[in-house]
């Protein structure tokens, strides 16, 4: 029997809200699947699209970005800039052979440990259904030819 597929998710979290939400999920012993590994940033606005691409090429099957709710950003409005980037990034990764559903933006405040855990669990389930990405391997197999020829990963 082959090993069931377990997705690997990289999470980029805002220091002020969702990283603290992850802390709270821990403090309140809320269980969620261990497929996510978090990176702390000062703000979701710090998200450089390169981070996401590097995560995918490094073997991640999904990337989750979490920031403060709109209007609650600790840096006033930088989460809106994250939102803009994520929307653009979703369009960018599609022609690169990555289903945009592998990238998700979630708003979670510091008090929403339960929500954070739930969102993580949901996203892991979604990526599990999409199957492994193996972006780098597929790109290598295609000899880095035009990305259109990349197999599978056609968004619904």
């Amino acid at each position, binding site marked *: 029997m082959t090993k069931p597929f*377990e997705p690997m998710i990289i999470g980029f979290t805002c220091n002020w809200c969702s990283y603290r939400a992850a802390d709270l999920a821990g*403090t309140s*012993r809320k*269980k969620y699947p261990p497929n996510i590994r978090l990176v702390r*940033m000062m703000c979701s606005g710090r998200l450089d699209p390169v981070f996401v691409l590097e995560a995918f090429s490094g073997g*991640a099957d999904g990337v989750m970005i979490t920031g403060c709710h709109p209007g*609650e950003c600790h840096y006033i409005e930088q989460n809106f800039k994250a939102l803009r980037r994520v929307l653009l990034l979703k369009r960018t990764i599609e022609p690169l052979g990555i289903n945009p559903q592998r990238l998700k933006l979630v708003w979670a405040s510091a008090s929403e440990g339960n929500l954070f*855990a739930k969102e993580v669990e949901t996203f892991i389930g979604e990526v599990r259904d999409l199957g492994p990405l193996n972006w780098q391997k597929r790109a290598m197999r295609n000899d880095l030819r035009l990305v259109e020829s990349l197999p599978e990963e056609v968004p619904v």
Partner: protein
Amino acid sequence: MNKKRIGVYVCHCGTNIAGVVDVENVAKWALEELGEEGVVVSKDNKFMCSSVGQELIQTDIEEQGLNRVVVAACSPHLHEKTFRTASERAGLNPYLCEMASIREQVSWVHTDKAIATQKAKAMVAGAVRRVAQHEPLEPIHVPINEATLVVGGGIAGIQAALEIANAGHPVYLVEREPSIGGHMAQFDKTFPTLDCAACILTPRMSEVGMHPKIDLMTWSEVENVDGYVGNFNVRIRKKSRFINLADCNGCGICEQKCPVKIVDKNFEAGIGYRKAIYRPFDQAIPNYPVLDQPNCTYFIKGTCKACEKFCPTGAINFEKEDELVNVEVGNIILATGYDLYDTKKIPQYGFGRLPNVFSSLEFERMCNAAGPTSGEIVLRDGVTKPKSVGIVHCAGSRDLNHNNYCSSICCMQSLKFAHLVHERTGATIYNFYIDMRTPGKDYDEFYQRVLEEKTFFIRGKVSEISDAARNEEEEGKLVVQVEDTLLGEQRRIPLDMVILSAALVPKADSGDVAKQFGISCSSNGWFSEKHPKLDPISTMTEGIFIAGCATGPKDIPASVSQGSAAAARVISYIETGVLALEPIRATVSEENCSGCRICNDLCPYNAIVFHDETMVSEINHALCQGCGTCVAACPAGAISGTGFSNEQILAQVKGLLMLDFAEPELEKVP
């Protein structure tokens, strides 16, 4: 560049971590597998935060020559400072120490031992790779201007201003209304002691008015805020009172002679009158009147000038214009207070339609001996004393259709109203409440006292107040329809008068004020604290503090405490003279900047300036708060962010992805 010598320390946290993660295995693995990354020491300890654990780090730095430290333990929000300080004690730059949160993010949220251990290893790998990219950093030092700006002259602002001024430092107190005092000046009694509000407030007000260190600017508004902690430059508009203050002696003759009578919607909550030239109340500080230009006959018709004619000192000046003042301050305290929820937005309660439904502030003014009825509790006709009074709690609070939060003061305020009505009219009183919340000192005792005064308490949310009588008993009365949840039945209670304990809401312009001062609001519109528990008076913007109801509904003692607390923080900044800021800042490399200005508009703090001569952007480190948005946006990669650089984050991502999933264990940890 010298070789990286990294020490890894894995904490058991008793069984908090060790119960799920195989800590010894993680430590052993780090030494064996991460040697290439520079790990030379890897240890585990029962409690890394204990003095033994900290000494372990210190000794290794000193004896093994470590130049980087990774502590895999709890969240950095808890002990980052502890371990950074420990590293610093051993002579290592504190910013060369990094934490991996294997408690909050691993052992407390996962159950499978093998997978959890694998994840912990990956997190250690991420931290090791990240810390290898760390550079020593020094805190940024900024000098602090001794003066402070306090915005809002309610009880919180008054308290803050007095504390700072009494410590000998100059304060500018800016108030939008003609007098300081805020909402507290409108009240008659305060719960639970039933102190007369004016008796305890006015001495404080006059202390402010006379204090040599306080520059009081009433009838004034902040127009613009520039600068950063330690060095704010604030422009204040002193609206014209049309009075030469140097000549006015506050005799009040102008007020008596003014022929125009206007409903005072502000101080008298719409149930009393004032003149077109007025002081909101007798004990107003300062005692100068204000000429209400839109309502003044002279400004409307061009004749009258009764005030000028009768003024004994010739102080009236119809030509006087607004004055703009620039002040330089080191810190700012915002104590801008609250508004009362407009109960007309709850149409089923009939406020504004049914005359004898009163808002809480209207009732406060009615009770006040200096108010429009001289303290007589009467119906809207001004003469009839009510024989039965209903008090509706949570009018607009704890209601998803209006405000979902508890306004915190209404239960006690309603009890106070019940007591005052009982004392002054002997009427039958009904309190309609959802839950009684009396958590303050002597609050519940006051509730007991009101209970003993034979006030009826009905537990249920009022569904409607109407004047539609169904029987003789209800004729000519207000009928309160409510489900009595203790009896489990619908009740209709006919009453003469109903008081709505309206919710407290953020000031109508709180969003604009927040933007002006560069702070953030919660989704409800209240100002956000830096930390809701551990730092309730700071904001995310250094040098800007918040106190009182601006952050959420509060009673008087809490507002006063916050005023003092904010003042204490400001005084400590002033006394230090220089403030050390976290060196998480963005920097533009002049060589690589193409001058495209993309970053310029991204900064909410206006920290990025563009130099026309050199065609490059530069970031002011005292203004920059370190969010890193510009770093991510720079197309030339010319901006770097200390503490969270691209190299550091990418290295961490690489480390986190080093290890794939472990085979799950069959036996799960309960």
